[in-house]
């Protein structure tokens, strides 16, 4: 396990360094968007990967409700934590890019609205966990919030796509890079994507393991309490 961890961390660190080198040294400055376009190499992978946690949360929450196996709850919880981090970073990096390009920090585009909504759902999920005292109830309630929240994020996207077409959503997608001819740009995107994906996957695995350890300690502690209670009598 330790060796596996070290290999994963080393690969991730190398990929992150390589992507930073490509973004700041190798990749040419965009003719139209200028230096601000460099944030895309971070923003796009963050935003795309933010869409994976809802799928994981929906599946694992449904698995938890049907099987009551705590591992599904731990995976859902970890995905929400990482999802919240990635969504926050995607919103911040997107905003930093939007200000010089669109002239505003925020616009009510379907994609942006969906991300803000996802962010709220993740916060709600973590809040209901922290406010529920009973562990079984905590897992059940958060699974319910996870399922409805994931479905809702999709509904918000569809709703705002149907009713609020201020401008094409593809503008903030990877469409800007598709026109670029420079192969170093394509390499930059690819390496950033791999690096940030490794960070994403590793964070979820690491958090899920950590939650498993915390649960194990709690159960050992309660066993110890029971034992000392028995000896006292």
């Amino acid at each position, binding site marked *: 396990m330790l060796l596996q961890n070290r290999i994963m961390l080393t690969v991730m660190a190398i990929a992150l360094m390589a992507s930073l080198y490509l973004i700041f040294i190798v990749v040419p400055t965009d003719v139209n968007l200028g230096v601000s376009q460099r944030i895309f190499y971070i923003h796009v992978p963050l935003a795309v990967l933010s869409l994976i946690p809802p799928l994981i949360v929906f599946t694992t929450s449904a698995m938890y*409700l049907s099987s009551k196996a705590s591992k599904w709850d731990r995976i859902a919880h970890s995905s929400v934590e990482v999802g919240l981090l990635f969504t926050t970073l995607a919103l911040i990096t997107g905003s930093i890019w939007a200000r010089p390009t669109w002239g505003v920090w925020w616009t009510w585009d379907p994609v942006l609205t969906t991300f803000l*909504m996802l962010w*709220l*759902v993740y*916060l*709600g999920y973590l*809040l*209901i966990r922290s*406010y*529920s*005292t009973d562990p079984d*109830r905590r897992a*059940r*309630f958060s*699974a*319910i*919030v996870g*399922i*409805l*929240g994931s*479905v*809702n994020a999709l*509904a*918000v996207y*569809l*709703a*705002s796509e*149907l*009713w*609020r077409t201020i401008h094409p959503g593809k503008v903030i997608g990877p469409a800007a890079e598709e026109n670029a001819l420079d192969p170093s740009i394509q390499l930059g995107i690819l390496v950033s994507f791999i690096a940030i994906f490794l960070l994403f996957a590793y964070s979820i695995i690491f958090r899920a393991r950590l939650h498993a350890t915390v649960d194990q300690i709690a159960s050992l502690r309660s066993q110890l309490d029971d034992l000392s209670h028995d000896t006292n009598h």
Partner: protein
Amino acid sequence: MKTYFTQILTISGKDIRLEIRTRQMAVSVIVIIVALLVVANLAIPNTTTTTTVYSTTATVVWLCMLIASFLVVMRSFIIEHDQIGFQGLTMCPVPRDAIYLGKVISNLVFLLAIESVLFPLSSILFNIPLLTLTIVAITVPATLGIAGAGTLFAAMSVNTKAREILLPVLFFPAVIPIILAAIDATQRALQGTTGSALWQDIGVLAVLSIAITTTSAILFTFAMDE
């Protein structure tokens, strides 16, 4: 099947009877709504075009409903929780989804009653035609979805440490799609849009509300599985 419907109606009837006898919720919600409309009048200046007035008023009316629905659904479970009625309900030999549907129906009745005050009042105060059949066709499915999601989240948050704080955090984002759809359909209806474009909006709203209520009914049985 007949027993199932009787169970649902008994549960909703109990809540409605309680409210008719005490009138606690109706009075406070109406006071809050009037106060909100007074504040909102600053957002709707007389000089702007009718289109702006329509779109702003539609938003104001649905924002009022969002806040009113929060109070209604929270109240419907707080009274149960505080008077240990909920324990009695869960011990009743009725399916969990009958409890859920009973609560949804009583909350739906309360919300429709509030709307029957809010809509005429807004029509008078802001001089807009809110009392039409099209608006009713928008309001009923939207209110069902709000009551459906609200009932599930209120049942859950009442069983936690910080119920008043937690409910809006869970409930408001959950009903955002319905509120957005309702505002948009109301704006279109006020602007005189008719035919397939408007009915498509109402259709989407109905599908969304039924989907949320059905999912919530299934999830409610898990939430109360103790």
